[in-house]
Structures are given as C-alpha cells and as structure tokens.
C-alpha cells in the first residue's frame, strides 16, 4: 500500500487548476440516484405522470369533440347532397339531431369545447403544482448530500448538472407514460361511445401533436421546478447545507 506523501506545499498556481465532472459520470450518478431511490422516484414520477395524464385526457376529449363535429357535418352534407345510400342507425341519429335543432346543437358543442379548454388550463395548473411539489421535496431531502458533495470539491455547477439530468430524465419518462395513460383511457372510452369511425387520419395526427406537446410541457415543467431549488441549494455555503435537518 503505497500512498504518496501529501504535497508539501500547494502554490497558488496549483490552486488555479480545474476540477471537473465529466458528463458521462454525471449521467451515471444521476441514473444511480433515480434507481436507488426507486420508490421515491416512482412517487415523484407519479405526480408528474398524473398531471400530464390529466392534461392529455382533457385535450384528447377536446380533439374527439372536434373530430365528432366534423363527422356530423360531413354526414349531413353528404345526406343533403343525396350521396348516402345505406344510412346506418348512427347516421340517422346524427342527421336528425343536427337538422332538427341545428342552433341548439351548435351552441352545445361550442359550450362543451369551452369547458374543455378551461379544464385543460386547470389540468396544467394542477400538473405544475404537482411537479413543483415533487421536485422541491426531492431537492430538499438531499441538502445534506449537496453539502457533502461540495466538501468533496464539487462546484455549484456540478450539483445543478446532476439535478438537471435527473429532472429531465424523470420528466421525460413520466410525461411519456402519463400521456399514454390519458390518451389510452380517453380513446378507449370513445371506442365504446362512438365506435371506430373517429379513428381516422385526423385522430392520429392530433394524437401525435398532443404527444409532443405533453412531453415538452412535462419535461419543461419538471426542469423548471427542479432547477430553482437546486440552484439555491448549490449556492448555499456547505456548512449551511450540512446543518439543514429534515
């Protein structure tokens, strides 16, 4: 066991040297952090997931309502043009309700969509609160760890980097799962209520757009909710971070 004698004298020039945390190492540590605190990570992720699932389901309902309207309009137009040869029971219902009370039906549909818009704003707020709460907790419970890392020579930026990677990973994965959950449930409901007629090209394109939006929102909110407390924790003097008891 040969351990070098400690350097006898550290000059100012040596102090100038850099210390570093390679990105691959940071990813490794972040992944480990998520994996080991798996139960905790699941709860954090569930908060994000449910928020995004709520948002996705509300937006998806709105999309279905738009698609439904379009189908009704097309059916009525086709009927009036005399292009419909075999009229199904569904179509009869559509045509009679659309033609007998056009004005009331329109207003109903518009009001319903406005309600959904409000609901999706609410969903986003719930989502934000849930994510902020989850990530705030996850930073706070690690103050001591942050203080320790700084004692070992970590720069503030290392701490922020670790949380950045961790939050983006958590945010991304839980948003994807959350979207799929909300999307699947609402689609399933519409299969049973409206049948398969709504699942055309428009359904898939709007699903894909909504997928992108949901994942972006989820990841971004998670990132924002983590970075503020992480930066604050990283800037604390190590002594103060180590003192924090939870």
């Amino acid at each position, binding site marked *: 066991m040969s*351990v070098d*004698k*400690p*350097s006898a004298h550290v000059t100012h020039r040596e*102090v100038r040297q850099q*210390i*570093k*945390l390679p990105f691959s190492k940071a990813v490794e540590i972040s992944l480990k952090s998520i994996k080991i605190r798996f139960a905790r990570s699941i709860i954090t992720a569930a908060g994000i997931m449910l928020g995004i699932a709520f948002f996705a389901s509300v937006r998806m309902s709105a999309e279905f309502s738009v698609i439904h309207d379009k189908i009704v309009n097309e059916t009525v137009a086709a009927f009036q043009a005399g292009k419909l040869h075999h009229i199904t029971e569904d179509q009869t219902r559509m045509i009679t309700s659309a033609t007998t009370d056009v004005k009331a039906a329109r207003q109903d549909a518009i009001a319903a969509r406005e309600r959904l818009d409000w609901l999706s704003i609410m969903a986003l707020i719930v989502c934000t609160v849930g994510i902020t709460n989850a990530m705030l907790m996850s930073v706070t419970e690690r103050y001591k760890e942050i203080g320790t890392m700084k004692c*070992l020579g970590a720069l503030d930026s290392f701490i922020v980097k670790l949380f950045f990677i961790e939050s983006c990973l958590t945010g991304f994965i839980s948003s994807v799962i959350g979207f799929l959950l909300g999307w699947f449930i609402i689609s399933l409901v519409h299969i049973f209520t409206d049948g398969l007629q709504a699942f055309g090209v428009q359904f898939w394109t709007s699903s894909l757009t909504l997928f992108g939006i949901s994942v972006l929102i989820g990841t971004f909110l998670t990132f924002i909710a983590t970075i503020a407390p992480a930066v604050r924790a990283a800037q604390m*003097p190590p002594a103060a971070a180590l003192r924090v008891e939870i």
Partner: protein
Amino acid sequence: MDANEYVVRTKGLVKEYTMGDQTLRALNGVDLDIYRGEYISIMGPSGSGKSTLFNAIGGLDKPTSGSVFINDVDMAQLDAQELAYLRCHTIGYIFQTFNLIPVMTALENVTLPTIFAGLSTDEGIERGIELLKIVGLDKRLHHKPFELSGGQQQRVAIARALANNPSIILADEPTGNLDLKTGQEIIALLKRLNVEQGVTIISATHDLKMLDISDRIVWIRDGKIDKLEERKNIELKMGEMEGEPVH
C-alpha cells in the same frame, strides 16, 4: 520564518450569527497557528464555537472578519473554482454524522472525490480499493452505507477524506456518534494516518480520549482560545480526567 512550517493560520477570526435582532458572536478573535504534520485537537463544550472554527478553517463558511490562511493562501481571496479545488485536493473532511452519500457504495463514495479531481475511472477505483484496504474495509467495497455499522461508515468517510492526498484532515467530532470501543479504533486509525502519512489532523471534539494522542490541544471557550497546551505538559493529569482506560 519558514513558510512551510504552518499549514493553517488564522488571524483575528470573528464569526457572528444573526438570530432575529440578536447578534451572536460564535468566534471572537481567534489566532491559531497549526504546524504541518501535527495532530491538534480543538476541545470545548458544545456552543463554545469549535464547530464554527472548524467550518471557518475548512472553508465551509465565511468568517465575518479575520482571515484563514491555508498553506499561506488567504482563503478569502479564492474564487469559487479555487475554493472547490482546495476542498477537493488540500482538505479532507470527516463528520460526526459520517455524511456518506447514501445511494453510493463504499467504493463509490471513496471514488467520488477522485472523479472531481479528474482521475480516470480505473485509477479512481484502484485508489479507492487501496484506501479502503488501509482503513480495513477491503471486504466491504460494495456495501451501501446503511449496510455498514457506524464505525465502518466512519472508516469509509476517512478513506474518502484521503482520496486526493490532502495535506489536512479536518474531523468534526469524529467519534461523537460512536461507542467507546469503536471511537478508540477510529482515533487510533487517525493517529496512524497522521504518523504514517504525515497528514495534519485537526479535530474538533469533546472526547477526552483524543487528548492522549494529540500533539497539542486548543481549548475554546466563548469563542476564544482559552488555553493552548502541548500534550507533554498535560499527560500527568490524564488519569484524573477520565476514569476509563485510555487506549
């Protein structure tokens, strides 16, 4: 005076804490010179300011006024990068509560400072195993902190503190959370490292077992140095101070 003689010097160190509208002076003008390679214990009752002094020397907290020189470099002059470099390379920290990273194994904990220092993974692991061997934990490389006893955790912490060959080890109540026997083992280990590797050990403590192996003892009271004793002058009194056999 030889510039290399002192590894740490403090000049007129004052630290004030503000609590509501009251100002508490935890350190009230501390001048302390610590020789290279010595084992120095900072003794004092709790609330005497010894942890505050520990934090100031270790660059973990900024003093209100006065200065700390590590290897003749004024710590107040260092920017964040340089301060981190100092913490990484020059000072090793040991805490009462061990402060291991709970998600990492013993080996990963010891390797972490070597990553910051820019060592490659293989070099770091080699160094980590070597250090854990020195502290007698080479059979526990892949255990998580919660799978280790208090004494073992403190050994990992000591190995981690040594990771980048620091010239100073700062230990804040290293035996505070350990039973008598384990505490003695840790003290013996610190002394061994002090003698074998020439590391300066600065330990804040109120464990009287520490007295026996310290080269000098600083007594702190009300934020001031009460008295500074060489061990050879107080050895005679040891028997009276503590009934239990000292290692």
